[in-house]
């Protein structure tokens, strides 16, 4: 814990993005889940939560768009990173379960800027984001004009995307905040910094790369 946190892992704007997006998503989850989980529906009576859902969506969708416009290269890099899968990921998957249950750290292959598990989360965020967006758009703007069968499937797909995104969010929160090994994750999403020790043990490949480029 006493290690100086000197390695820049996230830029300020990325951190802002992360937390505003988180806030918007939490509002969407709460106002959406009450329509989905049996027994909570009475909270939606009167329709106020549906209005809040729509307001939150403006931020949820608008923020990535704005971010993309001002940081196209970083955004494209994020998308490319999310969609690039290879042998490294397979190697990770072989030892990761043991590692997360406290197994030997040395058996873990060195990871890049994000590890395979984090990439899975990014993939779910991107994938369900698109599903939410398309189905939500139809339900918002084409209710009554699109064929009922299409509307119904939009509801179902929106539901399934919610299950996926919500359960993976729980995993994300657990690993970021609670898991005994992820000691610097949450703080790094606050001020963007991690220690050299944490960088080399968690993201060895990336740490080696940035160390080399600094020389």
């Amino acid at each position, binding site marked *: 814990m006493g290690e100086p946190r000197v390695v820049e892992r996230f830029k300020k704007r990325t951190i802002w993005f992360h937390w505003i997006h988180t806030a918007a998503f939490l509002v969407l989850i709460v106002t959406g889940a009450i329509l989905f*989980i049996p027994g909570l529906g*009475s909270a939606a009576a009167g329709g106020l939560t549906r*209005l809040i859902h729509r307001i939150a969506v403006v931020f949820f969708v608008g923020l990535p768009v704005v971010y993309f416009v001002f940081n196209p290269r970083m955004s494209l890099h994020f998308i490319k990173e999310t969609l690039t899968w290879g042998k490294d990921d397979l190697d990770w998957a072989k030892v990761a379960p043991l590692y997360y249950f406290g197994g030997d750290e040395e058996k873990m292959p060195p990871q890049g800027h994000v590890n395979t598990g984090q990439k899975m989360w990014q993939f779910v965020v991107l994938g369900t984001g698109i599903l939410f967006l398309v189905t939500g758009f139809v339900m*918002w703007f084409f*209710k009554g004009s699109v064929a009922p069968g299409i509307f119904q499937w939009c509801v179902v797909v929106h*539901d399934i995307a919610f*299950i996926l995104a919500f359960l993976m969010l*729980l995993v994300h929160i657990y690993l970021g905040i609670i*898991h005994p*090994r992820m000691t610097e994750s949450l703080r790094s999403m606050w001020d963007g910094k991690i220690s050299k020790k944490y960088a080399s043990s968690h993201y060895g490949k990336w740490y080696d790369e940035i160390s080399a480029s600094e020389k």
Partner: protein
Amino acid sequence: MQLNRRDFLKASAGVGGLVLLQPAVLAATNEFPNTSAPQSDIAMLVDASKCIGCWWCYAACKNYNKLPETIKPDPEQAPELSPDVWTTLHTTKRDGEWIFRKQACNHCTDAACVEVCPTGALSRNKLGFIQYDKDKCSGCGYCAEFCPFGVPQLDSNKLTGAAVMDKCTFCIERVTNDQQPACAEACPTGAIKFGRRSELLEEGKQRVAELNNISSKGYLYGENELGGLHVMYVLDDSPESYGLPAAPQVPPTSIVRNVFQWVGIGGLVAIVAGFGLNYIIAREAKITSELPGKEQMGRGKRNG
């Protein structure tokens, strides 16, 4: 195998059931189980062969429910159901003559609207018909989109989505006070009858038998459809020619939705339990690995 929908839901509650879902749902919903509407239910019997298209039911409905009134409609431009039109006539030309069928909520026994309504605004009255509580309505419109007859109506604000659903109430204040629904009372030809469902069912069957002496197309619509409708129709032609779907069903999507609700809850329980287990084991291992000797060794290797 005969499955009714509830049995099916129980059987498919497990994730394993998902694989077989689509065909099984279709099979289960396409075969009408014997009517499951209780004997004590009330209903209406609409005899399309007796309807003369006078629109008195339409006018009486508007008048009693204080909906904006209009002039007597032209069969060429029959009004469609809307938040201001809870009952209307479906009009078709047959051999140059108009034929009519009263059109409103059919008050199904297997009611898709009740199934999908998130807030419980739609529910079944103990007399069998489908009632709704406007204060509970969130305006989501799922009822309108899942109803096999397209009955519930909402005028949604395109931007905010604000809306409140409306449909035929079965004149709940009247029928729970020993009165007929306004439309049935107004009908001058006896084409709309109100009473016990079991009695109207017998009457409908008799009437269909009479019609079948003339042509063979007589059909009592609503006896078994969707578990038994609470508005049944005596038809002297195919359901389609009166604008009724031949095999209405609760959309399979509504059942898929139910199944995924339980998949989601199951996933949640599994994940939270997994976290607990993981935390205990990983914490124990971390404490062990932080014994000074081992820690030094491990890092030396990595950084070297």
